[in-house]
């Protein structure tokens, strides 16, 4: 059979099986097993566990459980509330200070915890009632938090970026740096929209400043600064060439755990176990998908599907930007249904040759891909953040939350367009700090 047609059949089978409600990783194994048996015979199954084990046998992957543990220990404390309070007190003099401090808190907390739902919950619990009290429209109060929560997968250290790095064999340190400026760009766009739409809705008075004394401003710092120092320390160790991402992540995890115990007095064994359990759950889930996706891509290449697609793309005579548009639409649709990690792992072996062949930078593409995944997090049908916000602010109808988050999806699309026009926004920082990438 022509490998291209076979590829199409595999794609359809994968979609059908994943939509049955089976776990993503098991689904990938099922599809792989079916096609391996049909085309390579029953004996080809014996390689499946070996391929899965081999895929996981990689020191770079260790950074995933470590960063998750680091994020979970921060997320399990009151750090989110403190961070919110600190930014709130320091930024209220700025016009629209409240929504600005909310988005800033989202960005920072997302970076520290690396978790989109945890950010929405931690900052939203404080931020949404406060914004409503100060007369912000419900759409802005919920939409800004839902959008702000998605920043965690773009701003370093990001587990999504690590998975991309492992799947495409690109430098994780460089990927982290590539996400910084686009992350700030998104924060800026979110802020601009929030202020504009609050002003336009006629609740301009909400944007007025609130005054805190210096004493009030300084008293919140001791509980926030140590966590920020750990994050800065982690990034310094990564780029100062002191340690690899996995080693840095381990030290970061240990330090954040200690801070949670020392500063937030998290000495209750039950609390510690809940945190450990949640981070184990998250790590196992992601690593199992990584292993299963390894088996899936082994199946694709042993049936010559990957190679055939790369060859086929080479013969296509389309404009590279038209190609990028198609890739974006594909990613967007996949992101509507699947978690970011699964999309990256399934798409990377097929998309990478296309992207490189068309002359796009893999680090720039990582950022574009991640923003696409962020859109999926705040769009129906499975936009996780929408449900988290619905859970913490049940008095606001889901319809309003949805309506509120749509303009922020618009901001993300604008960010992708800006990145297409100025790719340097993603590549400048890694190129400057780490030297031009060898391609």
């Amino acid at each position: 059979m022509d490998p291209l047609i076979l590829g199409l059949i595999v794609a359809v089978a994968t979609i059908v099986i994943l939509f049955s409600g089976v776990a993503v990783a098991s689904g990938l194994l099922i599809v792989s097993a079916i096609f391996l048996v049909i085309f390579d015979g029953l004996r080809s199954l014996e390689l499946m566990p070996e391929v899965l084990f081999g895929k996981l046998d990689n020191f770079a992957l260790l950074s995933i459980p470590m960063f998750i543990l680091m994020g979970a220990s921060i997320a399990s404390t009151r750090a989110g509330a403190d961070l919110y309070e600190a930014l709130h007190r320091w930024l209220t003099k700025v016009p629209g200070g409240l929504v600005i401090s909310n988005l800033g808190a989202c960005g920072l907390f997302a970076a520290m915890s690396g978790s989109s739902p945890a950010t929405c919950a931690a900052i939203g619990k404080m931020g949404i009632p406060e914004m409503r009290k100060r007369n912000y429209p419900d759409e802005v109060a919920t939409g800004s938090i839902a959008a702000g929560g998605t920043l965690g997968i773009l701003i370093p250290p990001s587990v999504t970026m690590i998975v991309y790095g492992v799947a495409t064999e690109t430098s994780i340190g460089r990927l982290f740096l590539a996400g910084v400026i686009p992350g700030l760009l998104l924060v800026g766009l979110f802020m601009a929209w929030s202020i504009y739409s609050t002003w336009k809705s006629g609740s301009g008075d909400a944007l007025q400043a609130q005054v805190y004394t210096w004493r009030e401003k300084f008293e919140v710092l001791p509980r926030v600064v140590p966590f920020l120092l750990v994050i800065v320390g982690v990034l310094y160790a990564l780029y100062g060439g002191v340690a690899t991402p996995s080693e840095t992540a381990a030290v970061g995890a240990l330090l954040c755990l200690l801070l949670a115990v020392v500063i937030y007095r998290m000495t209750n064994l039950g609390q510690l176990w809940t945190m450990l359990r949640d981070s184990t759950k998250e790590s196992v889930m992601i690593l199992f998908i990584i292993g299963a996706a390894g088996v899936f891509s082994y199946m694709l290449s042993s049936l010559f599907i990957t190679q055939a697609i790369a060859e086929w793309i080479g013969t296509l005579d389309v404009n590279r930007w038209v190609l990028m548009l198609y890739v974006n639409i594909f990613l967007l649709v996949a992101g509507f249904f699947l978690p970011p990690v699964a999309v990256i792992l399934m798409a990377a072996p097929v998309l990478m040759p296309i992207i490189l062949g068309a002359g796009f930078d893999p680090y720039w593409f990582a950022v574009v891909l991640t923003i696409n995944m962020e859109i999926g997090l705040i769009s129906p049908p499975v936009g996780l953040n929408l449900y988290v916000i619905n859970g913490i602010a049940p008095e606001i109808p889901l319809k309003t939350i949805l309506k509120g988050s749509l303009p922020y999806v618009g901001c993300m699309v604008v960010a992708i367009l800006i990145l297409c026009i100025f790719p340097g926004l993603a590549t400048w920082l890694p190129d400057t700090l780490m030297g031009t990438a060898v391609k």
Partner: protein
Amino acid sequence: MNQVILLVTAVSRAVGVIAALMIVLAVAITCQMIFLRYFLNESTVWQTEVVIYLMIGATLLGLPYVQTLKGHVNVDLLPIMLPPKARKMLLVTALAAGAAVLSVMTYYGGEIAHLAFTRNWTSDTVTAVPLWIPYISMPLGFGLFTLQLIADMLELIATPADKIIVEVGGH
């Protein structure tokens, strides 16, 4: 039947605790490695390899526990939209298919572990770790995961179709 399901779940939980502790141990060993290398300028030999095996072990042994927590992400859009009876049938089929492919993984994973043991395979590093130790996590993890999937399937079959709740936003 209920007792079998409870037993399988209890074993999955116990193994899950071990998996969680393996991750903590991996953090500790990695930190020790960094301390030796950067502060005492000593060379490290076994640490890198051991932490990788700990991570793989934690992942595989954690599979059944994560299943008890319903932590393996899935796309639940279709099951939510279906009428109760069809939903139940689809979910049972999905669990059965998962159990089938994982029993294949268990069998061949066990074969590799057995080969590694009888032929004394070791990793090709200075440490020369006997490979059956990390490999044994395959039949154990996949095997318990298979049992947990079957237990969940039996429980689902016993639940009336209109009582099955699918949580929205599975990831």
